[in-house]
């Protein structure tokens, strides 16, 4: 091979390898490489069975119950499409609130209840004073009713792009 051909072959090989890499990365994003699973994914059996994993979503409004012992709490995690009841014994983070994002780590028991060993609060990228927040919340509720969009942060982030 002439040196020029050789160099061309090498460059072509390199470019091909990088293309394969790009294809593989795109392929990976189609599969579930996640820090947490949404209740919909859990319902569709995409989440691990019989081992601990994380679920993420919203704490359903009005679902939080404290058990008489004072440390055990029960709430429902939802992504509006599906929901999963969660049982947790321990201290909740300060930002844990109904209607807000949460990531819980634990196991899904046979009875369909998720026994959490750790509960983390996940908040979204919105920062605003409380007054503004309540105004936005109202508006959002109305929007939600009409569109039934997902309220998971990820989808909220995407939704935000369409917002004026």
């Amino acid at each position: 091979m002439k040196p020029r051909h050789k160099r061309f072959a090498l460059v072509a090989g390199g470019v091909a390898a990088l293309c394969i890499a790009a294809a593989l990365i795109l392929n990976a994003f189609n599969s579930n490489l996640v820090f947490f699973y949404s209740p919909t994914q859990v319902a569709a059996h995409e989440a691990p069975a019989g081992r601990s994993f994380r679920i993420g979503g919203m704490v359903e409004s009005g679902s939080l119950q404290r058990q008489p012992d004072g440390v055990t709490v029960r709430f429902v995690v939802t992504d509006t499409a599906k929901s999963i009841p969660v049982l947790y014994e321990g201290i909740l983070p300060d930002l844990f609130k109904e209607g807000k994002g949460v990531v819980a780590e634990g196991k899904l028991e046979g009875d369909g209840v998720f026994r959490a060993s750790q509960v983390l609060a996940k908040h979204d990228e919105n920062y605003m004073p409380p007054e503004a927040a309540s105004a936005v919340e109202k508006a959002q509720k109305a929007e939600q009713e009409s569109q039934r969009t997902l309220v998971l942060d990820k989808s909220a982030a995407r939704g935000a792009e369409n917002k004026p």
Partner: protein
Amino acid sequence: MSFNWFRYSSPQTFYPLAGRLAPFFWIAAVALTIAGLYIGFFVAPTDFQQGDSYRIIFIHVPAAWMSMFIYVVMAGWAAAGLIFNTRLSSMMANALAPTGALMTAIALWTGALWGRPTWGTWWVWDARLTSELILLFLYVGFMALHASIDDPRRADKAAAILAIVGVVNVPIIYFSVKWWNTLHQGSSVSITRAPSMASTMLLGMLVMVFAFWAYSIATALTRVRGIILERERHAAWVAQLGTE
């Protein structure tokens, strides 16, 4: 006025220029920090969900942005030094590394500090946090490698190779929150859409960002002067400085 850049690409001419510029950036850094912190702590309202703990944002976000930006700039200088064999470029890369490492450390530390009250944990191994930690290791590796080769020109080149290879990590840090579900929030500020943040908060944050910029430039200039002196200590012009 025409400005000859090449005039300043030699250490000898850049040294006095850096000396003249550095004080301005130091003053700007101090002034902007005071203004930014004032806005951040006294003007900006509390947040509707996080209350006052969100105010870490005024340190965390500027530091996190700078940590990535400085890395890219550093790798750029290092690459220029490697390709064009210009001494000053490599010196700039060296001068930037400690500041970048500091910024990364601050971002990690304030992030962890912030994570405790908001998420309920100091640390999780999500993509954003892990890749930021790798960034810190890359900075440390860059400095360690440079320090452990004693011919400075060889050290420049070797460290440059590492810096260039490490650039892959930066987009991973930035896009990790998009690509994977992370505990870390998505971006609040973006070019393509309006910021999802109240305007005074944003103002405070941006002022702090400029403060961090000014600080980084100031430290880099000051440090590069030290490096120039150290490296060129045997050159005639440095000897002249001493006698002046």
